[in-house]
């Protein structure tokens, strides 16, 4: 199992196994981020392709100042915005498409997931991205700051606001609160 340093070193030499390893390690993370932000399978795939194409093209510029994952997220975040902008310019709907994921969970879980999706859809792009990166991808505030090209303290404030927005829109907020109180 390679570490990031080895992956990057191989890729910088143009070795296929280096690129393959980067793809295998982070392809799904990036795909998940793109899908959660774009909510469309085809658009997400475009963003993933363009993210890795750009990353492979500029792998020599990765100096290791940040984690490889953060570096890829930064590229992905901008590619996602670009794909969405291109989609809108091309006459795409401003409404996010309903590309429902297959789900074999219990009905209640599915409902909850759809609620989460509905709430996330109502949040601004950057708030959604910050919530995903902070609570699903476990990126630190410093890493999110690196991705978004802002300061870590700024990320904390934006994350705080995004949490409040999400909570205010969460339809089961009362129910969840009651459960917390009861427990």
């Amino acid at each position, binding site marked *: 199992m390679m570490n990031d340093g080895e992956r990057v070193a191989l890729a910088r030499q143009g070795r296929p196994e280096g690129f393959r390893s980067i793809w295998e390690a982070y*392809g799904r993370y990036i795909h998940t981020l793109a899908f959660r932000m774009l909510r469309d399978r085809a658009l997400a795939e475009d963003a993933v392709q363009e993210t890795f194409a750009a990353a492979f093209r500029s792998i020599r510029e990765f100096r290791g100042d940040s984690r490889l994952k953060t570096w890829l997220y930064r590229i992905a975040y901008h590619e996602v915005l670009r794909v969405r902008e291109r989609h809108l310019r091309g006459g795409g709907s401003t409404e996010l498409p309903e590309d429902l994921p297959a789900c074999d969970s219990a009905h209640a879980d599915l409902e909850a997931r759809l609620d989460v999706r509905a709430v996330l859809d109502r949040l601004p792009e950057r708030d959604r991205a910050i919530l995903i990166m902070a*609570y699903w991808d476990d990126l630190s505030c410093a890493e999110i700051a690196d991705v978004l090209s802002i300061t870590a303290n700024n990320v*904390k404030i934006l994350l705080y606001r995004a949490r409040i*927005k999400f909570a205010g829109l*969460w339809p089961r907020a009362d129910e969840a609160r009651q459960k917390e109180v009861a427990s």
Partner: protein
Amino acid sequence: MTITCAVFRQRLEPTEVGRRRPDGAVQPEPDAATLEHLATCPDCLGWLDREIATPPSGLRPAFWEALPTGVDVRMPTPTAPGSTLFHRLSLLLTGVAAAFALYLLTVRGIPQPARPIPTPAVETLSFLLPEEKPGAPFSFLEPAQEYSFVTRTETDDSHSWTFLDQDSSFSFIEDENDKEELWEDHSRG
């Protein structure tokens, strides 16, 4: 401008809750005073860190939706580093070639296109001999009487004359093989 902790926490409240912006626009960034307070107030920093440490209610990891099944995004062909290397190498070679060309231009001057050696219009200016004719268009610093054979070569932008004494003129005329070289030397000055 410094602000109090109460003002700081008040400023953190979102102002556009729930407004959806597909264009990615967001509410105004925290202003300088807010960021300055956060950077200098350990209490507020600690409080904020605690607030954001856990996901909001409802955003539990179990509720994150899964990726659609059957997704198989293929890895893009990593042509980049090779092509980047090739591209950079090409740029480097081009730069070196350009620098060398510039060096040559600087040191040697701009090369002129090869001009054909003018075919000398050889004529004996007998009218100059033994003395210049009055009214002739040319005059010479040295007395023309010393020369028995005068030739003139005319190019696009110059005229040149060759003065040969009696012996040289005979030699010149007799040695046909050297004639062209002789004229070439004369024409190049």
